[in-house]
């Protein structure tokens, strides 16, 4: 007969009391271990989700590029129609064409049955230096009357055939200006401001976004005033033909179509496709960033809520478990009062009797710690819907916490058992036996 046998037989005999104690230790350890596991699992899930979303976005953007090529094929080309003698090599540096064409060219394109052109925008523009708002500035003065109808494209036009339902560029009324971003910034002009340009008062209709091109120093207004200022009545130097209907590699068809009507012009594609693609990509990336930030913020708030919840619940559960264990040990000691009296009578010392209770609480603590360790990890991961058989879950396990639990739980149990047990061994055995 030894102490361990006595303890195990007693546990077997009063198994419900022991299981209740074990449950409370395991619950306390589950809460204590589960709380940080939950937070770690949540953070890990966040990382996984963010990585997955980021990867998905990359794939989506690649797909978008392919889609965009297809869409652009369907939407068509944006081309510039220039005078046949225009020097294309200097065009980019100047930022505008030099040679002019008769205004009637655009009218002919609109009325003579083009097969490929949809939207026509005649422009007269020239780089000039002006005194404006007290500054000596260089601007590209650009005039346009707005879109010229392509008469047989009736599906784009209003009923009277004189305007577009959804024009690519709105007509700028006389007396109003649309400014490039750079020039507006330099002159500190904003939409709605009044300004005097070349002796005429204008209202600023709009300030365009920065493009990083010569468009940033463009000043757009009605073509009549520009023709007058540049002394080029009924002249234009550029026709923008937008969203031309063509399949891939069909720029030649557009050229042929245009030259059929206007033999002495040249046609060139401009960079809007690349630009539009880049803009679409940027917009998608920005949308992705916003979504990611929103998701990250949402998960941060959830983690914070978990943290607040567990910071209250964990100590509460541990406290309730400790009180409950003290109650269970008090009850156990009360049940065993006679036993303690008899053990004392047959010569078993106080320390040995104290050991009986403390070793029992030690067993309870060790088993409870191990159960709590397993349950804490399982509950923490389950709470955030992490697969318990996944590698992420295995990576989440910190065996350091098992060692801490194996110290904390038995300590908690022995503390709970200590006071009732000490109270019991200090009771007079004679009074216990006399009571019986």
């Amino acid at each position, binding site marked *: *007969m*030894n*102490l361990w*046998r*006595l303890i195990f*037989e*007693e546990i*077997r*005999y*009063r198994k419900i009391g022991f299981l209740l104690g074990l449950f409370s230790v395991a619950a306390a350890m589950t809460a204590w271990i589960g709380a940080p596991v939950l937070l770690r699992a949540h953070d890990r899930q966040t990382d996984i989700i963010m990585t997955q979303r980021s990867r998905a976005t990359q794939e989506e953007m690649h797909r978008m590029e392919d889609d965009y090529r297809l869409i652009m094929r369907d939407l068509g080309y944006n081309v510039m129609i220039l005078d046949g003698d225009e020097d294309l090599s200097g065009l980019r540096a100047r930022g505008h064409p030099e040679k002019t064409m008769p205004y009637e060219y655009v009218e002919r394109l609109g009325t003579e049955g083009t097969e490929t052109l949809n939207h026509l925008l005649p422009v007269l523009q020239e780089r000039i230096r002006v005194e404006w708002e007290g500054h000596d500035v260089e601007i590209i003065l650009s005039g346009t009357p707005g879109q010229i109808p392509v008469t047989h494209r009736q599906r784009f036009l209003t009923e009277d055939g004189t305007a577009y339902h959804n024009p690519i560029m709105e007509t700028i009324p006389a007396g109003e200006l649309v400014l490039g971003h750079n020039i507006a910034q330099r002159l500190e002009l904003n939409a709605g401001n009044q300004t005097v340009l070349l002796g005429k008062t204008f209202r600023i209709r709009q300030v365009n976004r920065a493009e990083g091109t010569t468009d940033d120093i463009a000043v757009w207004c009605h073509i009549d005033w520009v023709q007058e200022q540049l002394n080029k009545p009924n002249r234009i130097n550029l026709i923008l033909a937008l969203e031309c209907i063509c399949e891939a590699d069909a720029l030649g068809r557009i050229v042929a179509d245009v030259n059929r009507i206007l033999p002495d012009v040249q046609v060139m594609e401009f960079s809007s496709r690349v630009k539009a693609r880049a803009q679409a990509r940027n917009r998608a990336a920005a949308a992705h960033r916003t979504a990611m930030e929103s998701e990250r913020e949402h998960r941060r708030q959830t983690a914070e809520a978990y943290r607040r919840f567990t910071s209250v619940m964990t100590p509460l559960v541990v406290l309730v478990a400790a009180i409950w264990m003290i109650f269970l040990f008090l009850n156990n000691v009360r049940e065993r009062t*006679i*036993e303690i*009296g*008899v*053990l*004392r*009578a*047959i*010569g*078993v*010392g*106080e*320390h*040995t009797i104290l050991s009986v209770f403390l070793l029992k609480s030690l067993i309870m603590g060790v088993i409870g710690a191990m159960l709590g360790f397993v349950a804490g990890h399982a509950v923490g991961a389950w709470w955030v819907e992490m697969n318990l058989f996944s590698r992420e879950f295995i990576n989440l396990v910190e065996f350091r916490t098992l060692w801490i639990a194996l110290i904390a739980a038995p300590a908690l149990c022995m503390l709970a058992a200590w006071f009732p047990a000490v109270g019991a061994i200090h009771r*007079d*055995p*004679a009074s216990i*036996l*006399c009571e*019986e």
Partner: protein
Amino acid sequence: MTQVLQIEHITKRYRRRGRETVTALRNVSLSLNRGDLRFVYGPSGSGKSTLLLCAGGLLRPDQGVITLSDRNPYALTSEARSQLRARHVGFVFQQFHLMPYLSVIDNVLAPTLASVSTDDQRPRAEELIERFGLVPRRNHPPSELSIGERQRVALARALLHQPMLLLADEPTGNLDQDNGKRVMDALREYAAAGGAVMIVTHDRELRDADALHLVDGALTA
């Protein structure tokens, strides 16, 4: 004759809060030598159990001296007193007080928890189980034993360490005639073998010619 127990002029009073003091023992003296079987007879409340507990080193008297195996147990520390009890005293209670979760063999071996002897006590325990006719019940818990069997287990437990002094409190109080006789025979046998046995009882039939009478805490011949 070797003296085992010497009780000299002991008095024990119980002071209960808010109530009058009760004197359980008044100037009681007696002695037990090896081979003695001494009955202390008295009605309920006469102080029999108090005398037994004082003699066994479990209850300190207010006055007087007790010498157990040449030592005053109440001059010892609690742990040393426990060791003294474990080596020299065996108790048998009216209510048996067996451990409900231990088998017969483990109950008999319970005193080994006091670790007074490094010898393996199992053969001795098996011998006692056989002697008291408990072999068929060896591995049964107390709840599966008859009343008589329980008292025999309690007696076997008390005799495991072959104590010099066996103190029995109403050992036959809950037993039928046959079982009572069996237990008394065992106690007489133990005394005949050199042990000192003190039995406190209210059973008139048990007392013999040498029985001491305890009346209101005072001992008379």
